[in-house]
């Protein structure tokens, strides 16, 4: 997030696109609802009538996978009617002309036709956005989990720059992160192209710096591969040794049959986790880990805040902290690592090697955490980025993009679009919530379908139906609901039985390699 949760309070307007905040980030949603109560305008852009809609002034119920067309449509109106923030754009942004050229191809009539909404709504939303400031744009996986995910993200940034909603309080582009420490895993360099603190592995100076710090030579100077390519590499034998730490890939990745085939093909597979799950059964070696509350460390939240996590008990049996496991393995290969606790790792290695976190030390985050960038121990942390329109790389560059449809769209045999997400009472593949009593609140997967389709197909609420895609088929209860529009099926991947990932399409954004969980073609029948 460029901005912070505490800034929700003073926002005058929210544009929530592809975020089911009340269920996926419930506490954030409470602050948003408080602001709306105090007069802020809420605009929701979502194919479903999800719970936020109740609080919204305007709801654009766009068709799944049409976000770029919608956002370009808004920008068309802003530019055509001269409603954008000219001063901000002139002072702080580059490539406005290219943006203009692209969005001029999306007059409201065309955008509305793609999105299956009324053109007047696009005009009204554009005018509303132009009339209030500051506005926060919030999004979640509804934006990223598309083959055009990166383009979706760029469009949200284009819009906020055009409106001048950047570099000030209660504005910005704010992706809410799904898992507690996705932000941290990125920050720590668990990515194939960057070291901790986003220092590029292809930069020789960065490589040298880390080689020196870690006391080695000969590290790789080329980008590694991303997870989907690792999985395929198991089949093609490009990858022979694979180590999975804490991810239940066999349930969480699209097209379970394919994923399981990949895992089966692994020559040597290590799985490190706290529970046996659908993935551990493919392992050659399983390593037992310390869980949350069994080790001291830090998580970094969506708002870039580095928070302390504390231990209250020992891990069960001889399970061990994860950092200990990696350190011991290094020892078995002749490397002696110095740090011997979360605090030593952070204070003596991470904060020293990554300038953005250099000012963060455990002694400073006993209570509230600090938000990076925080370069020195005197620095108070950064509440919002790009202050006064100063972007990290000089100016904010508009990256104009064209709309592209999902990789798989409805047809005669598979006339429904399947979209996926989360439910309030469960989390991911339920390895945690399923063992904390949450099953009592939502006990099995359902296929959420519209009242219209249910009537047309003679399906009653609670009745078992088949949902089938080109990749698989599941048998689940129908949940007939007003939330879902006709032509759509909505499901989750919380349960092994009826998991949406038997159906989802392993088509990926070419750059980010994020899978298109939000759209594939299915059929529904009794």
């Amino acid at each position, binding site marked *: 997030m460029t901005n912070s949760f505490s800034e929700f309070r003073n926002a005058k307007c929210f544009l929530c696109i592809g975020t089911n905040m009340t269920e996926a980030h*419930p*506490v954030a949603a409470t602050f948003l609802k408080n602001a709306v109560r105090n007069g802020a305008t809420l605009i929701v852009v979502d194919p479903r009538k999800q719970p936020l809609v109740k609080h919204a002034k305007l709801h654009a119920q766009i068709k799944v996978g049409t976000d770029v067309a919608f956002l370009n449509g808004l920008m068309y109106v802003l530019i055509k009617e001269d409603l954008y923030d000219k001063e901000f754009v002139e002072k702080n942004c580059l490539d406005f002309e290219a943006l203009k050229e692209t969005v001029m191809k999306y007059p409201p009539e065309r955008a509305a036709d793609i999105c299956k909404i009324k053109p007047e709504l696009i005009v009204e939303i554009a005018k509303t956005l132009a009339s209030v400031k500051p506005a926060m744009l919030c999004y979640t996986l509804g934006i990223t989990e598309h083959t055009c995910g990166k383009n979706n993200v760029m469009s949200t940034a284009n819009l906020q720059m055009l409106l001048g909603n950047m570099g000030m309080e209660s504005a910005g582009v704010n992706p809410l992160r799904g898992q507690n420490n996705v932000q941290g*895993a990125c920050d720590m360099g668990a990515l194939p192209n960057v*070291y901790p603190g986003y220092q590029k592995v292809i930069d020789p100076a960065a490589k040298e710096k880390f080689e020196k710090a870690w006391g080695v030579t000969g590290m790789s100077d080329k980008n590694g591969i991303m997870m989907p390519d690792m999985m395929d590499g198991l089949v093609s034998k490009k990858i022979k040794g694979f180590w999975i730490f804490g991810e239940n890939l066999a349930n969480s990745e699209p097209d379970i049959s394919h994923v399981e085939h990949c895992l089966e093909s692994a020559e040597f597979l290590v799985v490190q986790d706290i529970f046996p799950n659908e993935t551990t059964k493919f392992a050659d070696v399983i390593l037992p880990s310390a869980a949350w509350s069994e080790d001291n460390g830090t*998580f970094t939240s969506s708002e870039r805040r580095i928070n302390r996590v504390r231990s209250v008990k020992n891990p069960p*049996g001889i399970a061990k902290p994860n950092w200990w496991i990696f350190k011991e393995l290094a020892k078995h290969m002749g490397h002696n690592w110095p740090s011997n606790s*979360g605090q030593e790792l952070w204070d003596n290695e991470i904060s020293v090697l990554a300038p953005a976190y250099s000012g963060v030390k455990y002694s400073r985050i006993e209570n509230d955490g600090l938000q990076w960038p925080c370069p020195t121990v005197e620095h108070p942390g950064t509440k919002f980025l790009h202050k006064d329109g100063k972007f990290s790389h000089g100016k904010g560059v508009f990256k104009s993009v064209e709309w592209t449809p999902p990789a798989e769209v409805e047809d005669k045999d598979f006339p429904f679009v399947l979209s996926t997400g989360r439910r309030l009472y469960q989390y991911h593949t339920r390895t945690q919530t399923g063992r904390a*009593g949450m099953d009592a609140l939502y006990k099995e997967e359902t296929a959420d379908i519209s009242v219209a389709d249910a009537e047309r197909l003679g399906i009653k609420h609670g009745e078992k139906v088949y949902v089938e895609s080109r990749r698989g088929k599941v048998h689940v209860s129908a949940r007939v609901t007003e939330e879902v529009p006709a032509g759509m099926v909505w499901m989750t991947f919380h349960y092994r039985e009826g998991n949406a990932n038997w159906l989802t399409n392993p088509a990926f954004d070419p750059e980010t390699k994020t899978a298109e969980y939000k759209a594939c073609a299915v059929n529904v029948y009794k």
Partner: protein
Amino acid sequence: MNITINGKQVEAREGQTVLQAALAAGIYIPHLCYHEKVGVAGKCRACVVEIEGMRGLQTSCSVIVKEDMNVTTNSPTVLNAQRLVVDLMLSSGTHDCLACEQNGNCELQDAAYYLGIERPSVQYGEINREFDISSEFIYVERNKCISCGRCVAACNNVVVNEVLDFGHRGHHTEIVFDADKKMGESTCVQCGECVQICPVGAIVEKKNKGRSRYWETQKVRTTCPYCGVGCQLELHVKDDQIVKVTGVEDAEPNKGRLCVKGRFGYDFIYSKDRLTTPLVKEKGQFREASWDEALGLIASKFKAIIEKDGPDAVAGVSCARSINEDSYSMQKLFRSVFKTNNIDHCART
């Protein structure tokens, strides 16, 4: 500005109420309906005080401080009036503290203790309201409800879930869920904000019932293991068991608020399914192994693969739920020991 409370000069801020100024100065005045999160309700009248120049007793929660104000909180008149209010509250319910979950952390008990009320002077006839145990994680014991209204205000104005309200009339007034449904059948999302703000033992969480008393537990601050909001939790720990979780008031970003997962989803770590020892697969079956054997095996396999097919023939995915220090260590292992950048994580789900 300065005001005087019980003959003592205390500092007060513009706009503060007398109650807020007193509490900030460490002077206790019984109060049950006021809570800083939901603001002034002016309902319970437990906080009455005398203020020079104002006629009669004033509710300190609703009077704004003025320069040189002279306040008395401990005169016999004030204490008697406060006693009457608290006595009535005790009389109108079944406040038999022995097995009450709130015992030791109860604002009504604190008020009674401060005022020296041993037992209520009037014993009303038995008010037999059923316990509502229909909700998965929360139960409601209306016999202990003092109708302060904090939970109603919190559900509606803090978390804006709009479930709780007052229903029925007069003597029968009580808190209701939606249009008088059982809690478990209502639209309640079990965020537990009402539990956290209830001053007494009327809305209580089930998981801790009978397991620990407030003073037996250690309080440890930590961060929620679920979504990326990063809510700050207070773990209530007895021996090595987390018996309860509350939100840390005044903490960024959540200001004490939690959702159902953060508040009630903590006990997966105690599941009997946990992996407790390294396991090595032999002829399709897993058997237990020591750390030395398991790590030795991985080291030799990875070494062999790297020697034969090069470092880029190994790859790893890190965990987006585990601590930063774990992800750091894993990428360090892949980069500095295996010499590959084939390291990633589930950023995209």
